[in-house]
């Protein structure tokens, strides 16, 4: 089926491009590990609610994985700017290839790289004492994959809208930081004033992080899990439609 084939071709192109500039991959690999090494020791001292006698890593690492999704994939839209400027995207636009396939091929490259980063992080964390429920971990990776697709698609959409590094960076920074702070990854929200805690309830990332922690712990029936999956799937569908429609209209 040509849709799959076109997706595969575009994926291969993105992979080739990434491999030719390994610096970015290296940075991408090391950054989350750096966060792990820097923040984990600080969290030992905080009394974190929820799971009794688990190590702080078990609380922190799931949140960190979501954080990489947000920050790593959140900025993946930069990758489309060059193609936009060089006329490459336009060239693809003129072919009869399916628009979604063209985009999926590019996005999948970012998401697969992200999942590999997550794997690396989990490995390093395990060496530091992190213990995850295996089934929960697998489901978590599924959640991360869907989340990743959504965040990357969103970032690409913004890339198609802003077309330039400065406004794109400014917008992404404005969006990602509050989302991160209000999700309880770096600091538990029990420390925040009531108002912020209420606002945070509306942040899907809060529930995704909660679901991630529950899954790591092996608590497969925690109510945040269904909530997280539903939220992410809905956002994924909306974002995909949005980015494809932007692709249609991008060459104005």
């Amino acid at each position: 089926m040509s849709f799959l084939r076109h997706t595969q071709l575009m994926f291969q192109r993105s992979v080739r491009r990434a491999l030719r500039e390994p610096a970015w991959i290296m940075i991408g690999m090391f950054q989350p590990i750096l966060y792990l090494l820097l923040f984990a020791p600080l969290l030992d001292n905080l009394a974190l609610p929820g799971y009794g006698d688990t190590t702080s890593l078990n609380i922190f690492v799931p949140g960190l994985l979501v954080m990489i999704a947000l920050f790593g994939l959140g900025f993946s839209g930069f990758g489309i700017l060059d193609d936009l400027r060089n006329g490459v995207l336009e060239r693809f636009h003129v072919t009869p290839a399916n628009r979604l396939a063209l985009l999926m091929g590019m996005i999948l490259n970012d998401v697969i790289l992200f999942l590999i980063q997550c794997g690396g992080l989990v490995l390093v964390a395990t060496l530091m004492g992190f213990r995850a429920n295996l089934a929960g971990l697998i489901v978590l990776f599924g959640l991360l994959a869907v989340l990743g697709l959504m965040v990357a698609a969103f970032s690409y959409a913004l890339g198609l809208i802003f077309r330039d590094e400065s406004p794109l960076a400014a917008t992404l920074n404005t969006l990602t930081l509050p989302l991160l702070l209000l999700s309880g990854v770096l600091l538990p929200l029990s420390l925040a004033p009531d108002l912020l805690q209420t606002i945070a309830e509306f942040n899907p990332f809060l529930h995704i992080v909660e679901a991630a922690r529950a899954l790591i712990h092996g608590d497969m029936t925690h109510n945040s899990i269904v909530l997280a999956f539903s939220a992410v799937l809905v956002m994924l569908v909306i974002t995909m439609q949005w980015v494809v429609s932007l692709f249609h209209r991008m060459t104005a």
Partner: protein
Amino acid sequence: MNIIETHKLRKVFRTKGNGASQAVEAVRSIDLVVRTGEIFGFLGPNGAGKTTTLRMLSTLIPPTDGRATIAGYDLLRQSRKVRQAIGYVSQVGGVDISATGCENLLLQGQLYGMSRHETEQRVAELLTMLDLTSFADRIARTYSGGQRRRLDLALGMIHRPRLLYLDEPTTGLDPQSRARLWDEVRSLRDEGTTVFLTTHYLEEADVLADRLAIMDHGEIVAEGTPEALKQQIAGDVITLGLDTCNGARHRAHVLLGQQSFVREIHPADGQFQLFVERGEESLLVILRLLDDAGLSVRTVALSRPTLDDVFLRKTGRSLREAAESI
């Protein structure tokens, strides 16, 4: 058979100026016909609307109004089929500089639905045809302007489209590359591909196009073969220098005045300026005529009207002026 037919095609851009939003009518309701198998030229200064028209006809931007039929398919309702039938080489090109020429071509062919094997064969053909072999395996970032342009052309042609759009194909190229590209375009036409090219170079339109349309400020101001357009405007001018003997000149004047193809005669400074139709043919007749009458011609010059003259007549500006005013 017409490969392109447009009906009242129009494009208005809304831009946000300082505060208020402005509407710019880039293309005003044009009706265009391109015949199958011809090289059709779109000539006009920068900003005339040529590129916008081309981008509408290649499905890149939606028209504000009007419709078009490309290769038998409706532009708006059958855009997938239109895309399959056309190739488009934009002004800036679309080479992926992070990949090699071969990789670019292999991806492109397969995006058009060709199998891997078919694409490989076609790529081999194109590498030879467009002389890309020596650098096709290098990363495109290292290519010179001319090499990149040739790759652009290959990318547009890979699926053997019936209709190929070339937007300002030789801008920025050195004379040799330009001449080569012209040869390529002619070969394409000879093989049955219709080529629609836009240009702001007079010579290119004159030499290359079978038919052309001149565009200015979003409108088509003239259409036809280069010859026909030039003939419409002014005749050719033959300048003759005869022997200074008075009697000879008077006889020449009378003799020439009798010829039907001579529109006007202006004697000046021992020379005659004749406005004729079809100067290439008339010149021989005139020379023979004068020779038979025993009148000797010392010097002769033939000047032809140019497309600039056509543009000037139709718009009141010369193409060169228009180019400078942008």
